[in-house]
């Protein structure tokens, strides 16, 4: 049920993501950011990685959690050359996420540089159990 597409604004790019509950939404976000970064090669990345990176975050909202999750993904790629291939969720609520990020070495070069994850126009919408959002990145 997870879906993710890429869109662009005048200066930057974003992803439209959708999933069942927050869990599905965050899974979709990981796949979406990889689609943005790696394009056609993103499909090669899905699945369990060879390394684990714990993520434990208490936020003020789901939007806050989402931005911090994707910021961690950007940090790991930029600073440690690690690609996040999957998300193993341990505990989740509206403003909390504990999960293991599954990582692999950056064996594929990204096609763009995502510098930051923004809150710009970010609003998670829920309908019939499906959560959706548009998130914009500074590139």
């Amino acid at each position: 049920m997870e879906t993710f597409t890429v869109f662009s604004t005048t200066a930057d790019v974003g992803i439209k993501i959708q999933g069942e509950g927050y869990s599905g939404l965050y899974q979709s976000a990981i796949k979406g950011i990889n689609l943005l970064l790696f394009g056609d090669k993103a499909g090669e990345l899905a699945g369990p990685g060879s390394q684990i990176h714990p993520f434990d975050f208490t936020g003020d909202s789901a939007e806050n959690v989402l931005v911090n999750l994707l910021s961690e993904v950007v940090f790991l790629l930029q600073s440690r050359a690690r690609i996040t291939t999957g998300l193993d969720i341990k505990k989740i609520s509206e403003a909390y996420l504990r999960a293991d990020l599954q990582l692999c070495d950056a064996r594929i070069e990204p096609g763009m540089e995502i510098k930051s994850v923004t809150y710009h126009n970010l609003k998670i919408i829920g309908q019939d159990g499906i959560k959706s959002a548009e998130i914009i990145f500074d590139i």
Partner: protein
Amino acid sequence: MELKDFDKVGDFRWLLPRQKNSSMKVDAEIFATEDILAAAVGDASIDQVINVASLPGILAHSFAMPDIHYGYGFCIGGVAAFPADTGIVLPGGVGYDINCGVRLLTTQIELEQFYPVREKIGQAILGRIPTGLTDKSNLKLNKKEFIDVLKNGAEEIVKHYCGEKEDLQYIESHGKLEFSAPEIISDKAFERGKTQVGSLGAGNHFIEVQVVDEIFDEAAARAFGLKKGCISIMIHTGSRGFGHQVASDYIERIRKKNIARITVSDPQLVYADIRSPEGQAYLQALNAASNFAWANRHLLMEDLVAIFEEILGSSRTGLKINLVYDQAHNIAKFERHLIDGRELDVLVHRKGATRAFPPGHHDIPEKYRPVGQPVIIPGSMGTASYVLKGTQEAMKITLGSSAHGAGRRLSRHKAIKLAADMNVRDMLKNKNILVFSHSSMGLREEIPEAYKEIDEVIKVTDGSGISEKVARMLPLLVVKG
């Protein structure tokens, strides 16, 4: 909003009175042609100017320069000031790439000297200067050395690595703002930034070798060292991953502390009181990132000088390579301005806007005080760039501010689509411009059609009096990340 809501109050000056929107505390003032204003209404960047006008304590107007386009929080080209003692500070009023800016060098290298080595210089720059998506600097710093760079900016590079002390006076704020609290920088920011001091980056960052094509103001050109027919060199980059991480960290920190103050209209406009612990910490972190950017551009300059010296077989002195100026276009600084008849200490936020201080101002190099501060406005890849000078009019009407570039018109996706059938390198070669880049996609994103016409932006800055034309440069060689 529609065009008819704006009052034309001067040449290229449009006012949106605060009465047009009940949330506005001050008027919004846009510097634009009618076409630029219409585009700004269309892409909703005017809404961002209105959001800024609605912030507590804002002074004067919420300004937008003629390169206005949609951003996060502030629009690109946005300028706003708040009282230095009781006002607020916003990371969204600076941008993620803290102290992204431009540095301009002038030379006495003539075209006939440059053409035979142009290809070689381009290859050398691309080969030796870290560029692109995963670039790491040639300078390996340990944590203490990196902290010293964050504390001392360009001065640290001159003192311990390379460069001339004489150059520091031609950098805004002498390339150093006060920073003495490394504990307020996150481990992530250290990790992201430590390997990137002395790297260009990607996207719209570039190194460009140009020829001075036309002089509009002989006296100012002479003061700046610009000579028609001679080569100039421009560097556009900022604080790299370090600045981005700092900005992200402090948006989170200020947000956490001030959750009730996130404006419903835009969470990117989260703000802190300047005097609060978060506000003071952000301002310190901003200074650290600004110092990083100045150190970064200084190292890149020295790398370029070394390449020119080696390939042309002459020293910097022999080639008369001189730093004209280095200016920031994403920054917040404490300044003194006359507002509503009172001299006030304020915190001026400029996001995609530059300082444009007038003749006589104490904060510009002594050599330039007779003419005014250089204002460097690069065009898009393949088009002209300009040097202008700051004016008293800018101090009077824009808090001493001016435009910073051409401003994007098309999204990257639309640009790539438009350029799908173009051979961008050949297209530029036909215009006598050699382009060097690791990324063909990056070139397509940056085609000139993706940007506003630089001449239209210059027409507004010069026509409104906020900066006056001094010289135009045409590109000969572009290196993109």
